[in-house]
Structure formats: C-alpha cells, structure tokens
C-alpha cells in the first residue's frame, strides 16, 4: 500500500452509476483513478473530489486505471475557486491534461501548480483580467520549461542578446529571431525582457506575453482549440 501523497483532481467525469473517473495530478505526474461510490448521495468524498482543492490522495492497482483508496483534506478546506479565478484554474487544468501523459513525473511543475492555485485563491472576488494574466503566463512558461521547450527570453536564436529597442519574431522550434522592421505582428524587445523577469508592466507587455506563449504552446496542444479559452471571450454583457 502506498502512502498518501499531496495531489489535485484535474478533471472528473461520471463513471457508471455512482463513481467518478478521475484525472489526478501529483508530484508523480498524472494518474487516472476511479473513486468507487463517490457519486452516491451520502458519499464522504462528494465534496472532497473537486478540482483545485489541495488533497492527500492514495490509490492502488496496476495498469492504466487505478482505484482511489483514500482522500483527505490537506488542512482546513480551501474556499473553492469561483468566477474568473475558476476560469483560470480550468485553463491550467486543460493545459495539463492536453500536454502531459500519465506517469511522467514533474515535481517542479507540480509545485508551480500549487503556487498558481494559492495565488488564484488569494485574488479579490471579481479580479480584473490583468491581475490574472501574470500568474497564468508564469505557469505557461514553467510548463514549457518542464516539457523541454523552455523559452529563452534573453537571447535570440543566433545568440545575440535581446535589445530593448529591437523587434522579434518567434519561430517554434527555433526561438526568437530579429525582425527587420517593427511590423504589427513582431514582439518588442522591451516586452520580451519584461516577461523574462516575470513582469507585465503595461498592455503591450501583456499582449506580447499572451501572443508569444500562445504561439509557443500551439505545437504541444495539437490542432484542437483550448475550450476553456471560450469562457474568457466574455459573454458580451447584456444591455438593458
């Protein structure tokens, strides 16, 4: 029997009548496990096995699908993520589900994920989109690093340092390349250097970071779009 390990539920879907099929995420990587009877009305696990909740987990079995044997709160129950913070959490979970294979251990990334959850939880009730971007961009950078696609934001592909006044293109697989002119789709050197320091001082820096990371993540995600992004393209508020 294994010990209880810190972990999260990334996603859950109904399994048979009363169980959940869980995608778990711990320092050991992703694990698929079934929580038997957890959907039954009086299950002690029903409130526990929700995404974003830091948990202690134990599972057993061999093969691809394991059986969850124990689940506990880490400490006091953390308030669930709601609103935009919840959308961000879903986005992070979808990124992990789309890029990681079960069984690959990512100790550092797991710690980064814990930091992201704590950060999202500490935001005020209705955070501005700009307050959400830095934690997300940082997590995306760490994810790329963990998967062996770390972005070098100090130098371009030729080795020469990024100049604050320069303009650059990003070529997946190669890196940043100097752009002859300041065309509309080129990234400003200043914004790239800021992202390297994990800073997003202004709108241009935020746009650059978003576009750059979207381009860098695309080869890892395949052709299907990320569905949680649709939640952010705001519903377009109703006017009375």
């Amino acid at each position: 029997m294994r010990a209880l390990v810190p972990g999260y539920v990334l996603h859950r879907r109904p399994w048979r009548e009363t169980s959940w099929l869980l995608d778990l995420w711990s320092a050991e990587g992703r694990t698929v496990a079934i929580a038997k009877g957890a959907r039954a009305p009086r299950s002690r696990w029903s409130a526990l096995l929700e995404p974003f909740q830091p948990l202690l987990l134990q599972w057993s079995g061999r093969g691809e699908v394991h059986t969850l044997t124990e689940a506990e709160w880490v400490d006091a129950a953390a308030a669930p993520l709601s609103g935009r913070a919840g959308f961000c959490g879903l986005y992070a979970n979808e990124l992990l589900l789309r890029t990681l294979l079960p069984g690959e251990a990512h100790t550092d990334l797991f710690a980064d994920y814990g930091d992201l959850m704590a950060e999202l939880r500490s935001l005020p009730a209705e955070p501005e989109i700009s307050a959400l971007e830095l934690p997300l961009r940082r997590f995306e950078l760490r994810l790329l690093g963990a998967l062996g696609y770390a972005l070098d934001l100090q130098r371009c592909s030729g080795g020469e340092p990024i100049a604050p006044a320069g303009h650059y293109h990003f070529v997946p697989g190669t890196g940043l390349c100097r752009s002859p002119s300041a065309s509309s789709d080129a990234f400003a050197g200043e914004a790239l250097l800021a992202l390297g320091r994990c800073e997003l001082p202004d709108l241009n820096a935020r746009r650059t970071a978003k576009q750059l990371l979207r381009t860098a993540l695309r080869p890892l995600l395949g052709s299907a779009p990320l569905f949680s992004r649709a939640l952010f393209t705001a519903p377009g508020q109703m006017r009375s």
Partner: protein
Amino acid sequence: MTDSVIDRLMQGLRILPGVGPRTAQRMAFYLLQRNTDGARELHRLLGDALEAARLCARCRMLCETELCSVCASDRRDAEVLCVVQSPTDQWNIEQLQQYSGRYFVLHGCLSPMERIGPDEIGVPLLRALLERSPPSEVILALSYTLEGETTASYLQELLSDSGATVSRLSRGVPQGGELEYVDRQTLAQALRERRAL
C-alpha cells in the same frame, strides 16, 4: 447465446440508467411472460411520447406543445426567471409549489474539458429571451460543483449589465443533517454565510 430478439431486447433495456445485464434479463422475461398487456401498453406509450415530446420554444423544458404549461400560463410571474440544469431540477422545484416565476432549462453545465460550451447549453436562446422580456430577478438554481460554479460565473457575467438582480440558491447544513457528518467545505460555507436570527 444467439442474437435472438430476446437477447436484443435485453441489450436494449440496458440503455436505462442503473440497469445491468441481470436486471435487463429480469425485465425482459417479465415483459414477455408475465405482463404482455403491460408490455404492449409500454410500447405504445414510448412511441407516443417519442413522437410528441419536444422542448418548449421559450424555456427548453420537455413538453408536447409549442410552449410548456408554465410558459403558456398567464398566472406565472414573468418578472422572475429561474435557470436550472435539467428538466428533473425544474420538476423538483415545481413540486415545492413555492415558486411562481418562469424557468429556463440549460440541459447541462459548462464543461470545457467535456467540450460543452455556451452554445451547447442554450445561451443564445437565453440571451434572446432576456432581451425580449427582461426579468427583474434571475435565480441561478445550479449545482455546487465545479461545472455549476463555472456556469453560474459565466451567466453572472452575462447578466451583469442587464439590470436584473442575480441570485444563487443558498447552501448549508441539510435538513436532518447532524453537524458531525457535514463535510468541511459545507460547514465552512455555512459558518461564513450564517444568518442573524
């Protein structure tokens, strides 16, 4: 076993929730041996229901007319709209005989991982409804799960400028629930949102 009509019936019955091979076998033999009249009646009813059932053009509740009985009634309060996940939830709230407003049935909740987006839960129709007859209050009667939470946040944002009061069902210690057995999350929530007496 051969692929006889009886086998196929047993297979067919297994589409019902909670029906495994053993129950399907019992049902099939019961219908074919003990209660053939009942089986014929069931066959007719199922055919009729499938033929007639459709979604209400206004609220998406299952019904057999253009508008469901709630939407067609002039005794319902058009100022209040209750958004529910499923026809079952609408039915359960209706049974309370406490609510006199109208409904909108989403038939699901937002779940990006399952690729269920705003279009799948009828958001375009809901928007059209809100524009046509803006209610003064919208009650989000959604589950306290991640999907319910996501859907509530999304709809809250959609409604933020509509002028309507948006509320959500409150949560806490269930009737007959002993505190000892209430999960931590619910207990913490109930304490945070306690009520003055």
